[in-house]
């Protein structure tokens, strides 16, 4: 009955081989994700430079400031960054520190872009519509649906700028923004600020279309 006798050394060899192959697979996957994180980081840096360039141009050419403003490309980049971060959240998990830190910085970039556009809109009388969207990934049942509605609207109306803010991100500028718009409770999420109006809870597509 030699063949049936438990062969410990064979099992040990197999354990080593399996663990090695398995760790190689995990390492490969992690590296793939890390390279994506660096890609987002690079995007954020580029975006910061581009926004700053726009701001400087705006300040410098105060003779005809409104003629040079074209921020639609920047908005597109901002959206792409947002959707990529969303993807990273799905892949890495919503509590991953690297993703959260990139997301925090993303919120700041969004605020900066929004404030800049608000300024341009007032100075140049541009027809730029802006939605501020407050959501949570963990404490909001209908935020997913609201996200779909806003993505749809954004694609449908090129003049509409949507800035989404995860209320779970803790940074002082975002906290100030939340305070400014009275986002104190999670019960009312999702919250949409559209012009002077505030919509609490899920807002249907039709309602928002009527406002545009």
């Amino acid at each position, binding site marked *: *009955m*030699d*063949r*049936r*006798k*438990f*062969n410990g050394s*064979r*099992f040990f*060899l*197999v*354990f080593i*081989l*399996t663990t090695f*192959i*398995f760790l190689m*697979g*995990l390492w*490969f*996957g*992690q590296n*793939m*994700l890390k390279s*994506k994180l660096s*890609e987002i980081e690079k995007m954020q840096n580029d975006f910061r430079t581009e926004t700053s360039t726009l701001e400087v141009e705006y300040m410098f050419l105060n003779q005809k400031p409104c003629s040079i403003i074209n921020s639609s490309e920047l908005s597109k980049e901002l959206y*792409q960054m947002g*959707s*990529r971060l969303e*993807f990273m959240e*799905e*892949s890495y*998990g919503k509590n991953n520190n690297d993703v959260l830190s990139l997301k925090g910085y993303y919120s700041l970039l969004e605020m900066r872009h929004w404030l800049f556009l608000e300024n341009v809109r007032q100075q140049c009388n541009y027809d730029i519509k802006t939605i501020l969207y407050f959501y949570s990934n963990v404490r909001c049942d209908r935020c*997913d*649906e*609201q*996200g*779909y*509605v806003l*993505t*749809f609207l954004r*694609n*449908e109306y090129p003049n509409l700028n949507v800035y989404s803010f995860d209320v779970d991100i803790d940074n002082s500028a975002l906290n100030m923004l939340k305070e400014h718009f009275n986002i104190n409770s999670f019960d009312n999420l999702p919250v949409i600020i559209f012009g002077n109006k505030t919509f609490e809870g*899920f807002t*249907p*597509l039709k309602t928002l279309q009527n406002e545009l």
Partner: protein
Amino acid sequence: MVLAETVANISIYLGLFTLILFLVTFFEQKKELKNPKITRYYNVDILIPAYNEEYSIEKTIQSVLNLDYPKNKLKIVVIDDGSTDNTYKLAKKFEKQGVIVYTKKNGGKANALNYAIKRSNAEVIFSLDADSFVEKDNLKRMVGYFDNPNVMAVTPALKIYGKGNWLQKVQGVEYLWGVFLRKVFAMLGSIHVTPGPFTGYRKIFFDRYGGYDETTLTEDIEIALRIQGKNYIIENCMDASVHTIGPKTFTGLFNQRLRWYRGFLDNTFKHKYLFSHKYGHLGLFVLPSSFIFIFILLFATLLTVYNLVIGAYKAFLNLNAINFNFLGVWQFDIFNIYIPPFLILGLFLLIIAYLVIMIAKRVSEDNTNIKFDYLLYIILYWNLLALWWFMAIIYKLCSIKVKWSK
């Protein structure tokens, strides 16, 4: 998602471990692939129990008559188990070629085999299901294993007959995988099923420890576990191909598997003493890992179904919010293409499994093309397997009686 990924990672690690263990064992003991040389021709009885097998019985008997083995050492016995069709009449036609045909009241396959075993004077007894066909060299390749007095049974390489429909193609791949598995189990001294189609038994085992268990759903699992329990050897002859007709309907296959898996559960409980270090690989790895495999398979399947249902519900709500105008939110970004580690490893696992099947094909001298069948197998088989096990466990827990079905 975290739970699903963890379960997937655990399943893949264990799958990889098992597959590598099997491959290492196979190549370490490769010399055992060679069959022992025939030193003498044993007196062999081939028993063919048949119940309503009019569509295949003639072909089965004919394949046995074509065996290359001294005729004075070989007896072919058909036991008609009270068939209500023409089985008995068709078998009788072969009497003039020396085939012995018994007929009796229906009592089940194990009962029919025991009926003939009691009347046998052979040294080695082969059972052969009446829907299975042997190849000319099978006996010559298999009987040499009985030169070792501790060998009580020798199993063949069981394959699905013909190409058939999609369900039979899936079974075809499964059986080829089984060809490899049975050889590795033999190398680990852990075969726990001696299939109905053409397993040979040393007659003395029946004399000492009784015939087939007539109360079980799977007499082939019961007798294999009994042989292991008595510390005898079950061998496998990888190049003795036997072809059996696989069920061609979903219901037929479902009933067959329900019987097999329920029978496996019943018999492993009956022989639970085998889960011990005293039985080496069988007690410490092969039998326990079967149960771990069943648990993971069911857990992973239920989790997948749950995630699919929840995902579909959420997708419905999201699309409903934009009046199902999904093109309005569609955007492609190459950045979002990501293959998680468990998928990469899973793919690696499937490739190794394919190579294993290729090894089984090569050693068992099989030249069928299974590339497309393997794809079908990957897509369908695991879902079917989960369903069969799930139902078998429900039947076991609720003590629901399972009907005997081929």
